[in-house]
């Protein structure tokens, strides 16, 4: 088992934002990695920087973290295109970036599930051995996030 600790997470999150998620990272990541088919469990910030992680092996973790930033950026851009640039105008008339509810990537060597949390800008990242594991992972993730909403600063939208 490898990956960052809470201390690593605090170091990684240099934005100075209040971060209600961190006290719950470890337990939730352990639960996520225990889902059958899961190879990587991680929490990233909205920009795709991995704050804490667990993985079956180091190489898989590295491949996943390499992809997360690009995947989130691409998903956000695509969501904006699908919403025809509307993106939800803020109170001052400024457009806010739309947030994808869930991103699934099918890769040659497995699948990747990205689920933004509802009340923070953190994103749960779950690497899976096979695309056949996506349904099970989503189901498990929903239960785990519901049970950990307090620790993580909001559930996901799976």
């Amino acid at each position, binding site marked *: 088992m490898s990956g960052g600790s809470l201390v690593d997470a605090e170091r990684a999150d240099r934005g100075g934002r209040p971060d209600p998620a961190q006290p719950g990272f470890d337990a939730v990541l352990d639960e996520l990695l225990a889902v059958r088919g899961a190879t990587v469990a991680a929490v990233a910030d909205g920009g795709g920087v991995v704050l804490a992680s667990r993985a079956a092996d180091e190489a898989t973790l590295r491949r996943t973290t390499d992809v997360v930033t690009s995947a989130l950026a691409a998903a956000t851009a695509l969501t904006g295109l699908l919403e025809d640039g509307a993106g939800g105008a803020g109170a001052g008339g400024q457009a806010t970036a739309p947030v994808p509810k869930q991103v699934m990537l099918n890769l040659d060597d497995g699948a990747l599930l990205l689920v933004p949390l509802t009340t923070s800008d953190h994103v749960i990242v779950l690497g899976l051995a096979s695309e056949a594991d996506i349904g*099970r992972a989503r*189901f*498990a993730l929903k239960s785990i996030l519901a049970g950990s909403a307090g620790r993580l600063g909001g559930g996901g939208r799976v």
Partner: protein
Amino acid sequence: MTNLEDVLAGLWAQLPGCRVAAVVGMDGLLVERHPSVAVGTALGSAPGGDELEYLAADLTTAFTLVGGELSKQLGSRVDELVALGESGGYLARRVDANLFLFVVVGATADLGVVRRSVAGVCEQLAAEFA
């Protein structure tokens, strides 16, 4: 957390002639199945991984379709679908708004027992997920 695999294994074991039992999300994604692809292939009776995924997607479409005008005409939502052929059949039943359970059975299965068992498991799961 409910262990779906155990629940499905129990259902599969109590239904003679059951080829596979599975839980599927209403978006068409297979959540869990029993027996697993590897065991099912070894047994030679359960559908393979790809076949079951197509089946799950088709049943999701069927539930969506019958959730429209057919349900309106009935006056209540259609919660169960049964498809029978000479060599067996399919039975799918809603667990809740997001999930349904289905079984594929051979020609020797007793449909009454299958319906009762599946309904019982669906009620159990619905209570646990509520």
